[in-house]
């Protein structure tokens, strides 16, 4: 089995959890090899990649990578893949991850699969599992021509440490003419308010129209903090300006797949279900006994979220 390249998504000198998951998945398919682009502390990232099974860590540092959009990363990955001739390339199925994956697949003359919820080793190469049409079908696909480039959603697998003695290779990237065509004038990280990232969180507590207003989200946040959860919001709540779009769960927002999803005051429109349907356990609190969200909830409470949530927070804190 050959090398499986993993593009490492990192923040503050730490590998983000979805990329650790990719290293674990890469181990099923071949020999994991990590690609670290940019970053303040590539040595620390390389050490962490080795801890999670990467035999080779490719490191490329250049101002182009942070200062310009997408293409510098495609240039770097295409160059590394061209030399390593990997069995597959894995990336996170985020906005940027999918864009990089798409352009890379074209450059490598390979095949592209995005939004995989699992990747297995098959007789004819990697088999990617997708959940489509708002979770109503599971589709298993393979790439039949060229290098498979697969973008995988967060929480596909639990990352497993596999301490590996390996080497680090510095790469000098020859950037294409288009690499500097889109300038990133500024980049403002989103304040996380000390809560886990929505896509990575084990528990998500979301509020919808039933929360009634911006101030209503205080009870949602209180429960999230009591559970150590991330806070999400439905499109209705975001469109009304009650909560930031960065926290929107749904087809056009973030797609989450946590161990526990708590829907408060959310009716459960298809737009929303497409973003949370693969959660392991779903509970819902809603005044309307006919709300579609109850059709997929493992446990539903018909009631006022302003009564139920604060009491539930107390139970959680007492625990």
């Amino acid at each position, binding site marked *: 089995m050959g090398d499986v390249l993993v593009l490492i998504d990192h923040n503050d000198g730490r590998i983000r959890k979805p990329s650790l998951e990719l290293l674990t998945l890469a181990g099923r398919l071949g020999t994991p090899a990590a690609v670290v682009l940019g970053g303040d502390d590539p040595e620390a990232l390389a050490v962490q990649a080795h801890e999670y099974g990467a035999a080779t860590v490719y490191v490329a540092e250049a101002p182009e990578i942070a200062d310009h959009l997408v293409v510098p990363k495609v240039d770097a990955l295409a160059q590394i893949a061209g030399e390593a001739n990997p069995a597959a390339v894995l990336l996170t199925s985020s906005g940027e991850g999918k864009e990089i994956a798409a352009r890379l697949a*074209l450059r490598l003359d390979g095949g592209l699969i995005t939004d995989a919820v699992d990747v297995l080793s098959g007789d004819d190469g990697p088999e990617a599992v997708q959940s489509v049409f708002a979770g109503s079908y599971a589709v298993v696909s393979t790439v039949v021509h060229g290098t498979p480039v697969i973008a995988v959603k967060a929480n596909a697998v639990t990352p497993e440490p596999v301490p590996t003695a390996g080497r680090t290779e510095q790469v000098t990237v020859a950037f294409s003419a288009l690499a500097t*065509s889109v300038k990133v004038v500024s980049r403002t990280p989103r304040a996380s308010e000390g809560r886990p990232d929505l896509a990575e969180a084990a528990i998500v507590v979301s509020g919808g129209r039933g929360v009634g207003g911006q101030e209503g989200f205080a009870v949602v946040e209180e429960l999230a903090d009591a559970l150590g959860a991330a806070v999400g919001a439905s499109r209705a709540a975001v469109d009304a300006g009650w909560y930031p779009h960065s926290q929107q769960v749904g087809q*056009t927002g973030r797609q989450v797949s946590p161990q526990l999803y708590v829907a408060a005051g959310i009716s459960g429109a298809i737009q929303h279900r497409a973003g949370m349907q693969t959660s392991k356990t779903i509970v819902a609190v809603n005044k309307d006994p006919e709300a579609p969200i109850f059709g997929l909830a493992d446990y539903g409470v018909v009631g006022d979220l302003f009564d139920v949530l604060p009491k539930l927070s107390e139970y959680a804190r007492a*625990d």
Partner: protein
Amino acid sequence: MTLKIIVPVKHVPDATGDRCFADDHTTDREAVDGLLSELDEYAVEQALQLAESTDDAEVVALTVGPDDAVDALRRALAMGAHRAVHVSDEAIHGSDALATSAILAKAIEHVGYDLIVCGMASTDGAMGVIPALLAERLAVPQVTLLAELALDGGTLTGRREADHATERLRAGLPALVSVTDQSGEARYPTFKGIMAAKKKPVESLDLDDLGLTGDQLGLAGARTTVRTITAQPPRQAGTLIEDDGEGAKQLAAFLAERKFL
């Protein structure tokens, strides 16, 4: 100089219907009525706004798809696009995203452009990769996932809601942008717009017209193949209780049983 804006759009099965697959594993486009992908309406809207703020501009809606896909073009025309281009050919059926982007790129070159405005993703396949693929094929700046954009002379600026940060971007024309559902509500076609749309020109093209052959396209040319499709049993509704003052306590007990508390 006329500012030429192309908006690639997709005709998709209505997400509120029971979407399913045909026997050849492609999306069944007969079982459920189709419509203009909602996320493309935001692209049409932004293209029209840019055109309206420019002295001389033309907005061209473009689609690749079977006969019915013309409905998506009519909707874009009713919203205010000036004309439309419809690429249709038997050999296209079953094309993957890579092949679809090859057809769209050829059609875009055929029409000529200064700016391409895409939606962020379709509402059926929802891969969200066509904008990046088109930028790669056309070798133009990719300015994507914008919640806000502005055009000043030949300079495009925008606000990208990236995965972990907000980014301010700048690029020159010609360029490709994609816009999110945060970019601003799409206008609803007026009666006048719907009537006018019936008279607006729709150019029909096939693969020959674009100088493409079918061997890299369609199901046979796809780089990926579907091995299996399994209908997922719908999630079963679990326990539903009425809160009589004890609702939180009962919910807490359920969460404790599942080891969340």
